Protein backbone atom coordinates (compact mmCIF):
# COMPACT_ATOMS: atom_id res chain seq x y z
CA UNK A 1 0.00 0.00 0.00
CA UNK A 2 2.74 2.41 -0.86
CA UNK A 3 0.75 4.17 -3.50
CA UNK A 4 -1.44 6.17 -1.13
CA UNK A 5 1.37 8.51 -0.10
CA UNK A 6 2.94 10.76 -2.69
CA UNK A 7 6.26 12.34 -1.85
CA UNK A 8 7.97 15.09 -3.79
CA UNK A 9 11.35 16.15 -2.51
CA UNK A 10 13.56 18.87 -3.87
CA UNK A 11 17.15 19.06 -2.77
CA UNK A 12 18.43 22.60 -2.39
CA UNK A 13 22.00 22.62 -1.15
CA UNK A 14 21.83 20.60 2.05
CA UNK A 15 18.15 21.17 2.72
CA UNK A 16 15.38 19.12 1.24
CA UNK A 17 11.97 20.62 0.68
CA UNK A 18 9.49 17.81 1.03
CA UNK A 19 5.87 17.85 -0.03
CA UNK A 20 3.61 14.93 0.70
CA UNK A 21 0.04 14.04 -0.11
CA UNK A 22 -1.70 11.22 1.69
CA UNK A 23 -4.90 9.54 0.70
CA UNK A 24 -7.19 9.43 3.70
CA UNK A 25 -10.81 10.32 4.35
CA UNK A 26 -10.03 12.11 7.67
CA UNK A 27 -13.53 11.57 9.06
CA UNK A 28 -14.17 13.78 12.08
CA UNK A 29 -16.76 11.61 13.75
CA UNK A 30 -19.27 14.45 13.85
CA UNK A 31 -20.56 14.23 10.29
CA UNK A 32 -23.89 12.54 9.64
CA UNK A 33 -24.55 10.29 6.68
CA UNK A 34 -27.21 12.12 4.69
CA UNK A 35 -28.99 8.92 3.62
CA UNK A 36 -29.10 7.02 6.89
CA UNK A 37 -28.90 9.92 9.34
CA UNK A 38 -26.29 8.02 11.30
CA UNK A 39 -23.07 9.56 12.51
CA UNK A 40 -20.09 8.47 10.48
CA UNK A 41 -17.46 7.12 12.90
CA UNK A 42 -14.23 9.05 13.28
CA UNK A 43 -11.42 7.81 11.07
CA UNK A 44 -8.35 9.99 10.78
CA UNK A 45 -4.57 9.92 10.70
CA UNK A 46 -3.16 10.49 14.17
CA UNK A 47 0.53 10.38 13.50
CA UNK A 48 2.86 10.98 10.58
CA UNK A 49 6.54 10.22 10.88
CA UNK A 50 9.31 11.41 8.63
CA UNK A 51 12.65 9.69 8.69
CA UNK A 52 15.88 10.47 6.89
CA UNK A 53 18.07 7.39 6.49
CA UNK A 54 16.11 5.75 9.29
CA UNK A 55 16.56 8.69 11.68
CA UNK A 56 13.42 10.40 12.89
CA UNK A 57 13.23 13.97 11.65
CA UNK A 58 9.71 14.96 12.51
CA UNK A 59 6.52 13.57 13.99
CA UNK A 60 3.24 15.19 13.11
CA UNK A 61 0.43 14.58 15.57
CA UNK A 62 -2.90 15.21 13.94
CA UNK A 63 -6.48 15.49 15.02
CA UNK A 64 -9.57 15.12 12.83
CA UNK A 65 -9.32 18.81 11.87
CA UNK A 66 -6.66 18.09 9.27
CA UNK A 67 -8.29 18.16 5.84
CA UNK A 68 -9.26 15.12 3.82
CA UNK A 69 -6.41 13.69 1.75
CA UNK A 70 -3.86 15.56 3.85
CA UNK A 71 -1.15 17.74 2.42
CA UNK A 72 1.96 18.08 4.53
CA UNK A 73 5.11 19.98 3.61
CA UNK A 74 8.26 20.37 5.65
CA UNK A 75 11.98 20.98 5.29
CA UNK A 76 14.80 18.67 6.25
CA UNK A 77 18.26 19.99 7.08
CA UNK A 78 21.53 18.20 6.48
CA UNK A 79 20.29 16.13 3.57
CA UNK A 80 22.28 15.03 0.55
CA UNK A 81 21.71 13.22 -2.71
CA UNK A 82 21.19 9.52 -2.18
CA UNK A 83 19.58 9.91 1.23
CA UNK A 84 16.43 7.93 1.76
CA UNK A 85 13.42 9.82 3.03
CA UNK A 86 10.60 7.79 4.51
CA UNK A 87 7.12 9.01 5.39
CA UNK A 88 4.67 6.83 7.28
CA UNK A 89 1.31 7.33 8.97
CA UNK A 90 -0.98 5.51 11.34
CA UNK A 91 -4.66 6.24 11.92
CA UNK A 92 -7.00 5.94 14.87
CA UNK A 93 -8.28 2.58 13.63
CA UNK A 94 -4.85 1.02 13.52
CA UNK A 95 -4.40 1.40 9.78
CA UNK A 96 -1.16 2.66 8.34
CA UNK A 97 0.97 3.13 5.30
CA UNK A 98 4.43 4.23 4.36
CA UNK A 99 6.41 5.33 1.34
CA UNK A 100 9.96 6.35 0.68
CA UNK A 101 11.94 8.23 -1.88
CA UNK A 102 15.61 8.73 -2.61
CA UNK A 103 16.81 12.31 -2.69
CA UNK A 104 18.71 13.48 -5.67
Amino acid at each position, binding site marked *: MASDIRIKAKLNGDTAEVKTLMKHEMETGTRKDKKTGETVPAHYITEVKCELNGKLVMTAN*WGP*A*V*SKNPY*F*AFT*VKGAKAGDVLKVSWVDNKGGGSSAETTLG
Partner: protein
Amino acid sequence: MKLTRRMFMQGAAAVTALMAAPRALLAWPEKAFKAGSSDEVMQALFGSADVTESGSVVLNAPDIAENGRVVPISVSSSLDGVQSISVIVVENPSPLAASFDLGPGASADVSTRIKMGKTSNVIAVVKADGKLYSAQKEVKVTIGGCGG
Protein backbone atom coordinates in the same frame (compact mmCIF):
# COMPACT_ATOMS: atom_id res chain seq x y z
CA MET B 1 -2.50 -23.24 22.73
CA LYS B 2 0.21 -23.99 25.22
CA LEU B 3 2.42 -21.22 26.42
CA THR B 4 5.94 -22.44 25.80
CA ARG B 5 9.03 -20.80 27.16
CA ARG B 6 9.95 -19.64 23.67
CA MET B 7 6.62 -17.94 23.17
CA PHE B 8 6.93 -16.27 26.52
CA MET B 9 10.37 -14.95 25.67
CA GLN B 10 9.15 -13.66 22.30
CA GLY B 11 6.25 -11.92 24.02
CA ALA B 12 8.54 -10.38 26.57
CA ALA B 13 10.92 -9.24 23.85
CA ALA B 14 8.04 -7.61 21.96
CA VAL B 15 6.91 -5.76 25.07
CA THR B 16 10.44 -4.57 25.72
CA ALA B 17 10.78 -3.41 22.13
CA LEU B 18 7.54 -1.46 22.43
CA MET B 19 8.70 0.24 25.60
CA ALA B 20 12.08 1.07 24.14
CA ALA B 21 10.52 2.55 20.99
CA PRO B 22 11.01 6.28 20.54
CA ARG B 23 8.74 8.26 22.80
CA ALA B 24 7.12 9.81 19.77
CA LEU B 25 5.63 6.45 18.85
CA LEU B 26 3.37 6.43 21.87
CA ALA B 27 3.06 10.10 22.42
CA TRP B 28 -0.08 11.07 20.52
CA PRO B 29 -1.40 13.73 22.89
CA GLU B 30 -4.97 12.49 23.22
CA LYS B 31 -5.82 14.87 26.05
CA ALA B 32 -4.76 17.89 24.03
CA PHE B 33 -6.79 16.78 21.01
CA LYS B 34 -9.88 16.18 23.17
CA ALA B 35 -9.58 19.52 24.95
CA GLY B 36 -12.42 21.96 24.32
CA SER B 37 -10.66 25.32 24.62
CA SER B 38 -7.35 26.70 23.50
CA ASP B 39 -6.20 27.20 27.11
CA GLU B 40 -6.96 23.55 27.87
CA VAL B 41 -5.01 22.56 24.77
CA MET B 42 -1.97 24.51 25.95
CA GLN B 43 -2.20 23.06 29.44
CA ALA B 44 -2.41 19.54 28.05
CA LEU B 45 0.41 20.03 25.55
CA PHE B 46 2.83 22.18 27.49
CA GLY B 47 1.56 22.23 31.08
CA SER B 48 1.29 25.99 30.77
CA ALA B 49 -0.73 28.57 28.86
CA ASP B 50 1.96 31.17 29.29
CA VAL B 51 2.84 32.23 25.75
CA THR B 52 4.56 35.29 24.37
CA GLU B 53 3.45 36.70 21.06
CA SER B 54 6.50 36.91 18.88
CA GLY B 55 7.39 38.30 15.50
CA SER B 56 9.75 35.37 15.10
CA VAL B 57 6.78 33.10 14.57
CA VAL B 58 5.28 33.44 11.12
CA LEU B 59 1.80 32.12 10.54
CA ASN B 60 0.58 32.09 6.98
CA ALA B 61 -3.13 31.64 6.52
CA PRO B 62 -5.69 33.16 4.17
CA ASP B 63 -7.72 36.22 5.28
CA ILE B 64 -10.82 34.60 3.91
CA ALA B 65 -11.32 30.88 3.41
CA GLU B 66 -14.14 30.24 1.02
CA ASN B 67 -14.16 26.58 1.91
CA GLY B 68 -13.61 25.77 5.58
CA ARG B 69 -12.85 22.16 4.70
CA VAL B 70 -9.52 23.04 3.18
CA VAL B 71 -7.68 25.96 4.74
CA PRO B 72 -3.99 26.12 3.90
CA ILE B 73 -1.86 26.93 6.93
CA SER B 74 1.87 27.23 7.20
CA VAL B 75 4.01 28.07 10.18
CA SER B 76 7.68 28.91 10.25
CA SER B 77 10.01 30.40 12.77
CA SER B 78 13.45 31.96 12.85
CA LEU B 79 13.92 30.99 16.51
CA ASP B 80 16.72 28.66 17.51
CA GLY B 81 16.06 25.30 19.07
CA VAL B 82 12.47 24.87 17.93
CA GLN B 83 11.07 21.72 19.51
CA SER B 84 7.48 21.79 18.39
CA ILE B 85 4.93 23.70 16.34
CA SER B 86 1.23 23.51 17.14
CA VAL B 87 -1.76 24.86 15.28
CA ILE B 88 -4.85 25.81 17.29
CA VAL B 89 -8.18 26.88 15.79
CA VAL B 90 -9.87 28.66 18.68
CA GLU B 91 -13.48 28.21 17.54
CA ASN B 92 -13.24 24.58 16.43
CA PRO B 93 -15.01 22.02 18.65
CA SER B 94 -11.59 20.51 19.30
CA PRO B 95 -9.26 23.48 18.89
CA LEU B 96 -6.00 21.59 18.42
CA ALA B 97 -5.65 20.77 14.73
CA ALA B 98 -2.08 19.55 14.53
CA SER B 99 1.11 19.48 16.52
CA PHE B 100 4.51 18.84 14.99
CA ASP B 101 7.43 17.51 17.01
CA LEU B 102 10.69 18.53 15.40
CA GLY B 103 13.85 16.49 15.61
CA PRO B 104 17.32 17.96 15.14
CA GLY B 105 17.14 17.42 11.37
CA ALA B 106 13.95 19.39 10.82
CA SER B 107 13.61 23.06 9.92
CA ALA B 108 10.97 25.10 11.70
CA ASP B 109 8.76 25.25 8.66
CA VAL B 110 5.61 23.19 8.19
CA SER B 111 2.58 23.49 5.94
CA THR B 112 -0.67 21.60 5.88
CA ARG B 113 -4.38 22.04 5.24
CA ILE B 114 -6.95 22.08 7.99
CA LYS B 115 -10.71 22.23 8.53
CA MET B 116 -12.38 25.20 10.16
CA GLY B 117 -15.97 25.10 11.38
CA LYS B 118 -16.41 28.86 11.25
CA THR B 119 -14.56 32.16 11.34
CA SER B 120 -11.92 31.91 14.02
CA ASN B 121 -8.58 33.01 15.26
CA VAL B 122 -5.84 30.57 14.36
CA ILE B 123 -2.93 30.42 16.77
CA ALA B 124 0.47 28.99 15.97
CA VAL B 125 2.45 28.05 19.05
CA VAL B 126 6.16 27.41 18.74
CA LYS B 127 8.09 25.81 21.56
CA ALA B 128 11.74 26.80 21.41
CA ASP B 129 14.28 26.13 24.14
CA GLY B 130 11.46 25.28 26.50
CA LYS B 131 9.64 28.59 26.02
CA LEU B 132 6.39 29.22 24.18
CA TYR B 133 5.96 31.78 21.43
CA SER B 134 2.92 32.44 19.31
CA ALA B 135 1.43 34.23 16.37
CA GLN B 136 -2.22 34.51 15.53
CA LYS B 137 -4.46 35.48 12.71
CA GLU B 138 -8.18 35.63 12.11
CA VAL B 139 -9.43 33.59 9.20
CA LYS B 140 -12.93 34.31 7.93
CA VAL B 141 -14.77 31.24 6.80
CA THR B 142 -17.65 31.47 4.35
CA ILE B 143 -18.61 27.79 4.27
CA GLY B 144 -17.87 25.72 7.37
CA GLY B 145 -15.86 22.54 7.25
CA CYS B 146 -17.36 20.58 10.14
CA GLY B 147 -20.47 18.48 9.63
CA GLY B 148 -22.18 19.37 6.33
